């Protein structure tokens, strides 16, 4: 069930009608939440439900076993991790592994000819397996008491707002919260409503308006477009992926607020980052913190030698790239970020650059450009296309500049200019400046502002539909 669909609106209407009038009984609420979430997830394909239930049950029982049988703790943890990772390996990475092996063998003169197995990727598998693994790992580490109620566990694991595209919510945050009955205050309801409206606006107006131009340029195997157009397209893609993903997260957070729960912020103005390290503290925070806590720190983090610190960062970033997709371009994207982080660590350029006059702005520009290079690999269909795109981008010239708006589409171009203007305004103003505008009168006009956002979403919605991160 897609967030941008009539089915979902009807589903939400029914769910919140029931949610509001249910007795304040946690068991009943867990049952409703789990049932609704299973209906939501099974709407795509009911077979997917079997996988999440099986995987969830293994982790639920493993966590109980870890607490009850200390001698078998490690074995049960490995069992839980193996079951999650193996489902990921089979559904997400098997085809990639087979294709890569066949290609490698052919390149060295052997024809192994492993038959390609093509399996439908269950929606959201990367998200809920990570969420589930964090549960058993935290229980193993003694940070969390496992729940004895299977409905409680599945209410946490399958909660529909964040099931298919995050944020990856930690069990230590959500499980205790689920034990209480929260009646959202009017402030929470308003905050949730606003988040939902802005989420839909970001997704349907900005991301969906940019998608056709971006997809059109990347449909050619080798870049044939001019340099200014490609730079524009890459900036559009950077905004598209941010608005698409953060839009989804905003909708998820808004829906959670209506239930009385708080999901963590997943994006914190990432394109204002002053360094790559800063970028990863602002972009997809739930995933980057997951990799930090469950991969980077267990490997040793930055403790130990400099070489080990770099090594651990590279492993973490390459795995992060692989998590995003079963393709070498995603691994290359991870490598670009790892290289940037290593370079940053060695040269400490953000600190040195920010000491200059206007240095903070310069740091933001440089960081944005580095992130943009990474996005080229992230978006490209093949390695060849990515290299071709970068080659076109560095051959910067002004040809076809006058045709820019016609090439990307007038509507998309107008929205790009407005988005850049808004972003620049936010970026250049401090938090204090913004607070100065939040006078009582403007605060009262906030509903009108949100109404304008809703109206714009109705009339300026773009043609695209799928959330980009659904494919992960």
């Amino acid at each position, binding site marked *: 069930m897609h967030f941008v669909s009539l089915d979902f609106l009807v589903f939400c209407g029914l769910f919140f009608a029931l949610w509001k009038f249910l007795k304040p009984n946690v068991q009943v609420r867990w049952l409703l939440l789990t049932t609704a979430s299973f209906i939501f997830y099974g709407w795509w394909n009911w077979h997917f439900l079997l996988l999440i239930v099986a995987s969830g049950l293994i982790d639920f029982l493993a966590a109980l076993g870890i607490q009850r049988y200390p001698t078998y703790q490690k074995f049960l943890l490995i069992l839980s991790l193996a079951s999650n990772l193996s489902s990921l390996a089979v559904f997400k990475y098997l085809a990639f592994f087979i294709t890569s092996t066949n290609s490698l063998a052919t390149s060295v003169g052997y024809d192994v000819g492993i038959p390609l197995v093509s399996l439908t990727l269950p929606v959201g598998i990367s998200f809920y397996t990570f969420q589930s693994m964090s549960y058993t790992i935290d229980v193993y580490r003694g940070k969390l008491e496992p729940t004895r109620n299977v409905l409680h566990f599945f209410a946490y694991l399958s909660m529909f707002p964040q099931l298919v595209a995050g944020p990856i919510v930690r069990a230590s945050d959500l499980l205790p919260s689920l034990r209480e009955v929260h009646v959202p205050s009017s402030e929470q309801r*308003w905050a949730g409503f606003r988040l939902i409206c802005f989420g839909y606006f970001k997704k349907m107006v900005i991301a969906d308006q940019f998608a056709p131009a971006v997809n059109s340029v990347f449909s050619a195997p080798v870049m044939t477009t001019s340099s200014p157009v490609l730079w524009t397209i890459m900036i559009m893609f950077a905004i598209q992926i941010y608005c698409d993903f953060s839009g989804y997260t905003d909708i998820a957070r808004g829906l959670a607020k209506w239930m009385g729960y708080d999901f963590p912020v997943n994006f914190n103005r990432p394109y204002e980052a002053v360094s790559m390290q800063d970028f990863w503290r602002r972009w997809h925070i739930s995933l980057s913190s997951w990799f930090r806590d469950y991969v980077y720190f267990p490997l040793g983090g930055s403790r130990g030698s400099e070489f080990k610190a770099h090594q651990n960062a590279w492993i973490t970033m390459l795995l992060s790239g692989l998590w995003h997709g079963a393709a070498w371009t995603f691994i290359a994207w991870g490598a670009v970020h790892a290289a940037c982080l290593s370079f940053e660590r060695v040269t400490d350029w953000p600190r040195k650059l920010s000491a200059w006059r206007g240095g903070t702005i310069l740091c933001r520009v440089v960081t944005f450009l580095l992130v943009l290079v990474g996005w080229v690999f992230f978006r490209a269909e093949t390695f060849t296309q990515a290299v071709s795109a970068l080659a076109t981008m560095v051959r910067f010239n002004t040809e076809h500049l006058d045709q820019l708006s016609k090439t990307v589409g*007038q509507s998309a171009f107008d*929205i790009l200019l407005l988005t850049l203007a808004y972003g620049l305004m936010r970026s250049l103003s401090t938090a204090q400046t913004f607070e100065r505008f939040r006078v009582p009168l403007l605060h009262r006009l906030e*509903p009108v502002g949100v*109404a304008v956002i809703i*109206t714009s979403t*109705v009339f*300026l919605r*773009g*043609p695209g539909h799928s959330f980009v991160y659904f494919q992960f």
Partner: protein
Amino acid sequence: MAPRSIRISYQWVSDRITITIVVSVMLCVTFATRREHNHTGLSSDRFWSTKLEWSKNTDLVACGDSRVLNAVSPSAIESVLPVVNARNFGFSGAGYSAEYLEAAGRVVDPKSKQPTVILGITPHSLTPGACLRNTYIEEKNKPSARLAHGDAIDRTLFYFRPMDTKQFRRLFRVSRRSKQLTRLNPDGWRAVQTDHVDHNDVIEHYRSKLFENNTVDWSIVDSLCQTVYLWTSKGIRVFAFRPPTCTEMEAVENERSGFNEDKFIRQFEQGGGIWLDLTSSDLTCYDGSHINRNSAKKFSRRLAEAISDYGKHTDDAGSAGLISDVSEDASPVSRIRLTWKRQQ
């Protein structure tokens, strides 16, 4: 103290979400009513899906791309020709693929007294690009469930369809420029009435983009002529014409598309078709490619008169009089090679 019901009602009214929803609805309705209602008649969805449902219910069907869609008014044809009914089976961007021709053939009623197919031949309709991507294919592939709701809901939702930023800005203008009014008729004709004439963008598009790696494919012409031959052997009359457009556009098409009109006419006539060469200098082309409503009515009557005249003169013994050329090397299957022009 106010009664509880009034206090609760006040809470609802003053609730920010309620206010936002009310203001949003007001804004949406205002914008929907203020946007240029340049579409009347059937909704877009219903217009195309109705066409796709036609089957063996037409005496005369006109086929082709958007130039035919705009230029051929079945009601104007019916006012001249003694046919029971005429339909416009034009689709935007349509190419003469085997699939499209087969669909067009299914529209004609084989039991009609004079089943007739009229083909509007534009160079673009003979290109591979047109055969691969056009409105006929798009609409055919759309799920039929989208029209499960009634026409009234369809028309209401039509007001809330997305718009581009240019149209959005026009909502705030006090006085708006002259309208382009499009009527989607149940007989398949798209009638466009506008006072605004602007050729530049469309002609530039044809000149620089449309025929890039997409010129006329003569195998499509061969396939078309074979279909024409099959139709004519079943007793279906097949006429063809070049839809009216502005002179500059025709020059661009002749230069860029690889279309050779004389070569096409020869092949078409070998298949048994009848080429109609119709005057179009007095018609108004509003966007560089298509003619407007009044010109379409004029042109359609002209087209119908030409067909009627042809019919009268072939009913007479032989094909004398208006037949300007009879080939001596007629095909072995006894098709008379004709080049027929309406006598001025």
